[in-house]
């Protein structure tokens, strides 16, 4: 008999459970069911966004299929969907984001080095830190107003040129660069700093021979995420007067430009199947593929970084 093979403990626990169930059976059972229902809801909530996005991505890739070809990448926009391409806006996006990279890397890392390695733990440091976290929460369109009101109206630069776009987006993404660079710098063990200082280095020598090389992967990860963010920005560029459709690629920092998200914005409410279910999804796929590969690169760097430590 199976029952005889059960241990005393098992029988005892069974007896306890039966006693409890007899005592408060219905209550426990309903509590258990409630728990299961709640868990199910929580799982559903976690999956809701992910599954919705996955479905939308399937749709957008499906729609883009057949429209996304070599000609689409190398031609200028057109009022005929089947001849339209994204070349000028693609160049514009890459141009502006490259400039954002060149500007925000030294500025962001410099600020992070100051806050982590130079600043005394005083009021000024706390103020700057608080200011950075508040800047991270400012809506992107407000940065557009800053670009418009300062670079265009006050300094007198023309509307919608590459350099104004790059300046504006640099200010927008700097908080991201600074905070992630700070984290990377903080992850460098103090013992390494002492080792450098013990060899008689000055603070700057310690920073550029020990701290920066060791935190470089972390800094680059944050940098790439910030650039992906800049790549997807639309509203600030509209505010500084960037064109939503442009027919020639920008060739210098003072050329007027347009960016991929602006082109998507311009195409998304054009009537006609060819635009709504053709070139717009195709442009979205290009943008998402670029962003995805940037994020993939960031994850790859982070993984290598965490393995080494």
């Amino acid at each position, binding site marked *: 008999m199976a029952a005889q093979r059960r241990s005393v403990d098992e029988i005892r626990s069974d007896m306890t459970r039966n006693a409890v169930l007899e005592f408060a059976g219905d209550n426990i059972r309903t509590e258990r069911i409630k728990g299961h229902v709640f868990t199910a809801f929580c799982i*559903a909530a976690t999956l809701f966004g992910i599954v919705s996005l996955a479905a939308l991505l399937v749709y957008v890739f499906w729609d883009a299929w057949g429209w996304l070809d070599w000609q689409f990448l190398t031609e200028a926009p057109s009022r005929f969907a089947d001849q339209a391409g994204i070349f000028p806006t693609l160049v514009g996006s890459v141009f502006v984001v490259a400039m954002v990279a060149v500007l925000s890397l030294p500025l962001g890392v410099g*600020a992070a080095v100051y806050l982590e390695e130079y600043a005394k733990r005083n009021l000024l440091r706390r103020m700057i830190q608080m200011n950075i976290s508040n800047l991270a929460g400012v*809506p992107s*369109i*407000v940065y557009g*107003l800053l670009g418009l009101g300062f670079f265009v109206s006050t300094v007198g630069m023309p509307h919608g040129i590459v350099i104004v776009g790059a300046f504006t987006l640099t200010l927008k993404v700097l908080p991201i660069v600074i905070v992630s660079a700070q984290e990377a710098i903080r992850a460098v063990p103090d013992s390494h700093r002492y080792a450098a200082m013990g060899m008689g280095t000055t603070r700057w020598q310690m920073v550029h021979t020990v701290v920066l090389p060791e935190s470089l992967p972390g800094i680059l990860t944050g940098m790439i995420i910030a650039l992906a963010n800049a790549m997807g920005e639309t509203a600030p560029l509209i505010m500084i007067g960037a064109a939503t459709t442009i027919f020639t690629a920008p060739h210098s920092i003072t050329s007027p430009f347009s960016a991929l998200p602006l082109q998507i*914005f311009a195409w998304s409410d054009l009537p006609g199947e060819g635009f709504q279910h053709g070139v717009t999804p195709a442009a979205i796929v290009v943008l998402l593929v670029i962003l995805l590969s940037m994020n993939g690169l960031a994850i790859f760097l982070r993984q290598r970084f965490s393995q080494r430590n």
Partner: protein
Amino acid sequence: MMDYKNLLKQPLRSLKENAMGMVFLLCAVLSVATTVGIVIVLLSEAVIFFSEVSVIEFLTHTRWSPTIKPFEFGVLPLISGTLTFTFLSALVALPVGLMAAVYLSEYAAERVRAVLKPALEVLAGIPTVVYGYFALVYITPFLRQTLFPGIRTFNVLSASIVVGIMIIPTVASISEDALRAVPRSLRLAGYGLGVTKFQVTMTVVIPSALSGIVSSFILGISRAIGETMAVTIAGGNMSRIVNWLRPADAFLRPIQTMTAAMVEIGMSDVSGDSVAYRSLFAVGLALFLLTLLLNIASEVFKSRYREKYE
């Protein structure tokens, strides 16, 4: 033995040392200058705007028409639109984000969590212009076929749904941090009283993490208020005062938020010396102050739970 050459280098070295320190300080100060710049730019234009359009008119008039005659600059329709849009987005993002946080922190196995958490983060990485397209081209027709046959091509509901989805990770990740910060001992004490995991979660863990959860909610709401492109593309840009007592009229028709109104002016070719141009900065100032206030409130709540458990 001292190397005299190094000794000679010493002043030069400390000069360089100080210079580098100054350069880094300047980089950090740039962030402060950015804030100051934002405030000065917004204020200086807004002040001129309010000398042309009285504050009373701005705050009480019920029509917003900055570019089409007769010009009117009543901000109420825009505030009404922003409130409606934010309310609906929050309706999606807050409960879903919180429950996702509860699942990730209390229920999910470590391996499941390692997959789901980054997957959830992807939602926040999609550009808002793409979300706007999704709302206009996929969500609205879907809603029309399933739940609301009378829904307009441009409406606030689909824009809110996609933005709600976009904000889920913001709410989830901060809430999850707060839930995980609740000490194990509190949970064990709950179990010791013989209650189920569900009861421990509801009566011990969530209340203990409340300040962090509130912080995530406020930040989520602030994100929705500042969101621009999705609601510009899918929301329809029709400024009106929304009457929530008639939900079909309120939620299934176009609206215009403060942000969308700014884009509309930005897209039109108003000159840099017009009331419409300056109204941009007045609305921008209101938006900046509102989100700043919410972000600070969110920080305050966050620091409260950090004090409690960390």
